[in-house]
């Protein structure tokens, strides 16, 4: 049973104008396994998934399903073959019930009339197979993101998928939800399916996967190998293509006696924060650590005027500040906010790179009658593109065409263009590959070394330990304590985690 090969690809090639997105990829998916598909952004994972699900047809190579050569000409054909996929974006009909979404492909019907009774049983069966307890009659829009994801997996079960591709399934899940998802994945593999797990989080990959394929520059550098034979560092080395060394950054010292740029003094907000105290000094990186939902982004948004501050005082450069809008935060106080959600809040996807970068400084560039010189815009943008090593084909390229990491850099560039006096960076490296992550870390570090105060929000403890000078730990909209970072991962992470979990000891 366990050595039945379900899907095999051989020497797959896919060429887009100017790029060989896939350049000889091999992959062997065996029944009953959880298969990790790894690679940096741009290594070809998305293209491979699109080829396997019939969205793109390959320009070369062979696909075999259970020993027979197949051609997948459309997503529907892939589904019929038995290949299901759960994308990063939710693909459900929000107004429909759970049961109707699960049976959407072939809704049970009689003479053109939907039979709602008949869709309940198969939906319940699929949900039960996943060990998920959901009301099949509930509209999907009322479910959480994690629940919606499970509905999508149930939908794939309903179409009898034997290969299930999960693209970054944990990106928007809390740790508990992710743990539940892993149980579901193991359960599916136990039933003889093959689950392909795409993730940037190596810890998860090692926790749940059996075999691994690593892509680099469109080639498979490690092909369907048992994961147990490889260490964390091996895999990173394969992905990056050079030995991974612990990030080395030039030394940087913080003048703790300098006057803080931003002070929060006993701040409460309408969102539920109470008694928040925080200081950020010039050249200092202050980390704001906590679990998802601890209220970190919400706190920053309140400071920027996107939510109401109900008590306490915010001081910028020593003077009390009433900030009512991000516009005021930027123009009067020089506070820039690099958002977590770059696709929806950070960049204008349909706009060229140059305009994305200069949006914050149009006022400064503008001459008489609000005319913005194209040349001034171009010069400024080019400078930042070079400085941040943003990979673009040209300044006129639309931001939407860039990879995730480069989009994040564009988002950062626009704040640098504005000469901000304080930078708030929210989850800078979520969904970003290892190499870009390092480049980002160096960038943030250098900005601080040049004297810029930075407030860094991250759920990645390793990132915190690498970058932050002090780590402020938050849970339930309150500050639980502060850890001085001496860059010893075990010691610092231990203290931070203890602050989250042992609330009583902190209070006493």
């Amino acid at each position, binding site marked *: 049973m366990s050595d039945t090969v379900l899907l095999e690809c051989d020497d797959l090639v896919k060429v887009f104008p100017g790029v060989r997105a896939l350049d000889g990829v091999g992959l062997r998916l065996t029944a009953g396994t959880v298969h990790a598909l790894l690679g940096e952004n741009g290594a070809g994972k998305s293209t491979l998934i699109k080829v396997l699900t019939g969205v793109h047809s390959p320009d070369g190579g062979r696909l075999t399903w259970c020993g027979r050569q197949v051609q997948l000409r459309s*997503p529907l054909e892939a589904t019929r073959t038995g290949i299901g996929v759960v994308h990063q974006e939710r693909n459900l*009909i929000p107004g429909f019930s759970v049961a109707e979404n699960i049976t959407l492909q072939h809704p049970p019907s009689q003479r053109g009339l939907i039979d709602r009774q008949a869709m309940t049983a198969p939906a319940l069966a699929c949900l039960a197979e996943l060990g998920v307890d959901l009301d099949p009659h509930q509209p999907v829009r009322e479910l959480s993101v994690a629940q919606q994801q499970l509905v999508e997996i149930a939908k794939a079960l309903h179409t009898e998928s034997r290969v299930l591709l999960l693209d970054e399934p944990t990106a928007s899940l809390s740790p508990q939800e992710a743990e539940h998802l892993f149980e579901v994945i193991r359960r599916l593999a136990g039933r003889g399916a093959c689950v392909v797990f795409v993730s940037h989080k190596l810890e998860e990959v090692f926790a749940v996967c059996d075999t691994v394929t690593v892509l680099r520059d469109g080639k498979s550098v490690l092909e369907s190998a048992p994961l147990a034979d490889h260490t964390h560092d091996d895999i990173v080395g394969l992905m990056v293509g050079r030995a991974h060394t612990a990030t080395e950054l030039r030394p940087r010292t913080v003048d703790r006696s300098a006057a803080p740029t931003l002070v929060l003094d006993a701040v409460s907000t309408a969102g539920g924060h109470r008694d928040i105290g925080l200081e950020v000094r010039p050249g200092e990186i202050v980390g704001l650590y906590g679990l998802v939902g601890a209220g970190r982004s919400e706190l920053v948004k309140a400071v920027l005027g996107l939510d109401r501050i109900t008590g306490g005082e915010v001081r910028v450069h020593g003077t009390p500040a009433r900030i009512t809008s991000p516009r005021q935060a930027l123009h009067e106080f020089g506070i820039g906010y690099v958002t977590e959600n770059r696709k929806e809040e950070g960049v204008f996807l349909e706009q060229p790179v140059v305009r994305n970068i200069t949006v914050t400084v149009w006022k400064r560039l503008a001459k008489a009658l609000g005319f913005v010189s194209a040349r001034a815009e171009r010069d400024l943008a080019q400078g930042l593109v070079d400085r941040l090593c943003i990979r673009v084909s040209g300044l006129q390229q639309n931001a939407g065409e860039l990879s995730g990491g480069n989009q994040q850099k564009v988002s950062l560039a626009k704040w640098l263009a504005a000469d901000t006096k304080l930078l708030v960076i929210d989850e800078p490296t979520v969904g970003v590959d290892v190499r870009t992550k390092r480049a980002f870390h160096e960038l943030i570090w250098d900005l601080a070394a040049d004297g810029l105060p930075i407030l860094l929000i991250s759920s990645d403890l390793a990132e915190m330990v690498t970058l932050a000078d002090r780590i402020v730990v938050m849970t339930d909209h309150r500050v639980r304590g502060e850890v001085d970072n001496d860059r010893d991962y075990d010691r610092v992470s231990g203290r931070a985690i203890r602050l989250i979990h042992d609330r009583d000891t902190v209070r006493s």
Partner: protein
Amino acid sequence: MNSVNTLAGQGSRAAGALRRFSRSTAAMLLVVVVAGYVALGIASSGAFFEGPSVRVFLQYLATPVLIGLAQMVALCVGQLNLAVGALGGFTACLMGVLMADHGVPAEVAVLVGLLTATAIGLATGVVIVATRINGFIVTLATMTILLGAQYRLTGTRTVDGYSRTLRDLGTSAPLNIPLVFVTALVAAALLAAFMYRTVAGRRLLAAGGNPLAARLSGISTDRQIVVAHTLSGLLVGVAAVTATASLPGVNRSVGGDWLLPSFAAPIIGGVALTGGSVAVFGTVLAAFVTRLIDAARAQFSLDPSWVNLLIGLVVLGTVAGGRLHQTRLEKSPQSPTALPQPGGAQ
């Protein structure tokens, strides 16, 4: 044991459905309609509850209901139909001219009218899908063309010498319930059954709710756009028939004031402009509300300009209220996270 469980399950489901309904726009509108009607009744010292008043009230309700439904069908796949009024006016004039000037029997003229309106809707849908031009622009063009055609048909005259039978049907009201109103209600009921019960209707909604997900499930979104415009055309055709039957005559001004009410009814009724939702009951009730405003205007002999002002305000108020409600839902921490904006739903 098993049946008990099922019963309990159904009970809780019914309770859930009831709870959902009590929070819905339709429930709110139902309260507004009943309260408004009672208030008008009291203000008119009971005259408003009497047969003739009820009859007049319902007589002029048929058209707003039907054009609201026609717009709703277009909205449910994320499209819109600017040609509702022009198509209705053109169809009404076409039927009038066929009967009065060419002696075509009423049944044939009505059939030709319905088929023409449906065919024009179909053509609109096909053009939108084939050219990939935004539906706004295509229906704007259709509207202008049809306005020209309507003028060409009637010129400046009013065509009124047509079928007595059709007129009689249009004004007859057994038990003070006008037939045209019954027609509108039947159309609404059929449409509701189509949307909630048939596979074809669910496909329409799926394509409107999340085009990408629908495509991945083997549903052709292009086909759904064509179906929606065709259905919209058919409903406009029905509206034109009721208008022709109940108006004293048809001329170039028929349909001229349909566009705002056609949007007002579904929007007040709780239909999302982004597609994926229908509210047949809500749309019918919203048409009631706009009609109530009109009736109140007549009752208190206010200036007619108040009606449009009020309807405009109600539309804005509903949309703003819906927005506020949405924001409050998103901010309350215990509510399940709302769907991330489906990227393909623009």
